[in-house]
């Protein structure tokens, strides 16, 4: 007979309705799957009792597949151990490529794969044919699904998959697609820090603000979560995409090389790997002991025997640990909080086992971090709890999880500038509206370009969608009112609506982010946006001055065409035209964003204004004369009184 689990009171699942749901932590280095059994959340292990599945996939071609034509994918430990023998067909750290196009991926050079790009999608040529990052992730997810179905004894109703809080729409969509390929029904995507908070049951507290400190194998993430009345809200996220346990291994490796008097360049690849493994083992051992001997036999018969103490290790890595604090401070600043506002700190990721990391975190936050749960498992456990609720196995816990949009969303405006509609770190679901207007007289079409990113210029942000609003009634520039609404649903997918207010014409677009098929790229992320803030501000000032100047030119030209012959003597007209051309010239030539060009634009604009002052006064007078002519004094008085 079927095996039963103990249920919560009153919610025993009826036969054939028991909904199995799992939480999956799809990590860069390792992945896990967990589920709630008898009210107890557990990580599901494979036949060998291993919980962690290395996120490594090895593809075997038909010829190595033992005569059969079918190609095979080997996932996990076996693939990982084949990594050095078959580097081109053994894919790891594939999460870094999810939802990216070739141009997005800047740090691709250290991956030994045969990259192809077709229609802008990154593909890797393997023995089993072309593979996209989605295919590879799907193979990892499929392995976890099979493991879960074997352990739970049935088909899965759904899964909650965690993603980093900073994943953009394209990366989230790619993760969902991978899950679908793997035959998983995605109940929802959950931000990793939120999952960690759930695992610690922080949702049982009444309220508070928590920091989730996630130092993994290759990345560092810090998130600030706010809990109020059982509702989680991600206030801010930050991190360092190139800081993790691997850097600590490298530190020890460098120490071994220099202490033993070796030269790194002279070592064979095999020796390097051996020493790196020794370094990693030493790192892990130093979490429990104060000193560890490091012994290794090199290929040239030399034998190493060193002793690394925890104090030396701490000293070596003081710079690495300190690097976690800058993003942490930034996240706190983004959230508008100080260290004293943080009620609890959750540690996530295997690297947080290192005592010096714990000590630094404790010192920075002035409190001991939460460490009861296995930091490798905590995200998967939280995801499993959420999956259990979403699958309908638990009535009471109706969590409403609020997530945050990782990058600002906005529209292109005249001058190639980005007007941000939804600022970064806004909680989702959310909707924001802003009114825009026309730039030219008689403009009936407005082109809307939806962008994602922190930079001021369109070319530096990521293009998500373009669409047009047609049928705007013909009016003078600035008279039309077009309300643009941005809406993000709970899964972080965006829809944009533009509506002309007087006639009600409307168009909308739902952004199903393509995997970078658009012309632009996420070439710069947040750090970059901070680093270039000042240059961006100058560019914005210049572009705005240019837009203002063009508006003056347009208005002057329109006025000249209408009344130039009637109201201006030829020399007067020449003066205005000279200033007009001068200003147009400066717009064209002064394209570099510096104070000089901005000032020159302003001077030329002012000069044109001065030159047209008399003309403008005459136009006013002419207009008034026209309005007054042929009317009786009584009628005029009436008008004035009115």
């Amino acid at each position, binding site marked *: 007979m079927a095996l039963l689990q103990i249920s919560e*009171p009153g919610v*025993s699942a009826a*036969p054939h309705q028991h909904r199995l749901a799992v939480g999956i932590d799809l990590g860069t280095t390792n992945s896990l799957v967990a589920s709630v059994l*008898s*009210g107890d959340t557990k990580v599901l292990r494979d036949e060998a009792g291993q919980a962690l599945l290395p996120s490594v996939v090895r593809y075997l071609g038909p010829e190595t597949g033992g005569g059969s034509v079918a190609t095979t994918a080997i996932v996990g430990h076996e693939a990982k151990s084949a990594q050095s023998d078959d580097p081109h067909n053994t894919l790891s750290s594939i999460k870094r490529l999810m939802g990216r196009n070739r141009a997005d991926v800047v740090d691709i050079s250290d991956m030994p794969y045969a990259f192809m790009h077709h229609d802008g999608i990154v593909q890797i040529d393997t023995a089993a044919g072309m593979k996209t990052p989605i295919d590879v992730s799907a193979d990892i997810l499929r392995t976890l699904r099979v493991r879960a179905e074997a352990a739970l004894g049935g088909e899965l109703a759904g899964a909650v998959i965690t993603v980093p809080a900073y994943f953009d729409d394209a990366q989230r969509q790619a993760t969902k697609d991978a899950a679908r390929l793997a035959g998983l029904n995605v109940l929802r995507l959950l931000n990793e820090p939120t999952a960690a908070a759930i695992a610690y049951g922080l949702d049982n507290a009444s309220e508070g603000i928590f920091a989730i400190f996630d130092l993994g194998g290759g990345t560092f993430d810090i998130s600030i979560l706010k809990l109020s009345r059982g509702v989680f809200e991600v206030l801010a996220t930050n991190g360092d995409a190139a800081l993790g346990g691997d850097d600590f291994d490298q530190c020890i490796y460098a120490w071994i090389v220099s202490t033993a008097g070796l030269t790194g360049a002279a070592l064979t690849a095999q020796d390097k790997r051996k020493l790196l493994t020794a370094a990693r083992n030493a790192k892990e051992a130093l979490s429990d002991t104060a000193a560890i001997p490091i012994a290794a036999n090199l290929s040239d018969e030399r034998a190493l025997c060193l002793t690394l103490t925890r104090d030396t290790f701490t000293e070596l890595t003081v710079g690495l640990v300190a690097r976690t604090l800058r993003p942490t401070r930034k996240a706190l600043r983004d959230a508008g909080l100080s260290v004293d506002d943080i009620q609890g700190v959750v540690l996530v990721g295997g690297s947080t086992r290192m005592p010096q990391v714990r000590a630094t975190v404790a010192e920075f936050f002035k409190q001991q971090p939460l460490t009861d749960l296995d930091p490798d498992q905590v995200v998967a456990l939280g995801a499993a709890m959420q999956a259990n609720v979403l699958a309908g196995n638990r009535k009471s816990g109706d969590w409403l999880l609020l997530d945050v949009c990782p990058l600002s969303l906005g529209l292109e405006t005249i001058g190639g500038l980005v007007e941000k509609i939804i600022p970064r770190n806004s909680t989702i679901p959310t909707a924001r509206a802003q009114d825009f207007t026309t730039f030219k007289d008689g403009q009936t079409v407005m082109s809307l370009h939806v962008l994602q990113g922190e930079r001021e210029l369109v070319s530096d942000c990521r293009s998500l969608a373009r669409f047009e609003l047609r049928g705007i009634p013909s009016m003078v520039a600035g008279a039309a009112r077009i309300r643009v609404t941005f809406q993000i649903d709970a899964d972080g997918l965006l829809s944009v609506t533009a509506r002309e207010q007087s006639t009600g014409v409307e168009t909308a677009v739902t952004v199903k982010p393509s995997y970078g098929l658009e012309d632009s790229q996420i070439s710069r992320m947040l750090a970059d946006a901070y680093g270039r803030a000042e240059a961006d501000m100058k560019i914005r000032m210049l572009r705005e001055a240019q837009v203002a100047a063009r508006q003056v030119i347009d208005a002057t030209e329109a006025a000249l065409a209408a009344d130039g012959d009637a109201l201006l003597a030829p020399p007067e007209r020449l003066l205005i035209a000279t200033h007009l051309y001068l200003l147009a010239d400066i717009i064209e030539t002064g394209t570099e964003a510096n104070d000089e060009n901005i000032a020159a634009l302003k001077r030329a604009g002012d000069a044109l204004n001065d030159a047209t002052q008399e003309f403008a006064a005459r136009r006013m007078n002419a207009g008034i004369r026209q309005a007054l002519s042929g009317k009786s004094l009584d009628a005029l008085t009436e008008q004035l009184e009115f």
Partner: protein
Amino acid sequence: MAITLTENAAKRVHAFLAKRAAVGLRLAVKTSGCSGMAYALEFADAAANDDLHFESHGVTVLIDPKSLPYLDGTELDFVREGLNEGFKFNNPNVKNQCGCGESFTV
């Protein structure tokens, strides 16, 4: 009239009960499923007035009087079948059960 737990099952139940403020384990049958009756296995946070109490290996088992005839003599076991682990009802009253074993007739 008795309901018993195997030692293995009792150990498991203790582990689960330790994590919550439950008074014991509730066993029941419900009329549902493809073959007549189905088992329900729940944490009992409070005992009802009519509940029958059984003790086995230190675990309090609560059963409502209507369910008892179907469950009398049952031994609750905790087993591992491959990767799958869970509780199993060894119920002498069962005459027939559906293919998947989730429901039964007496």
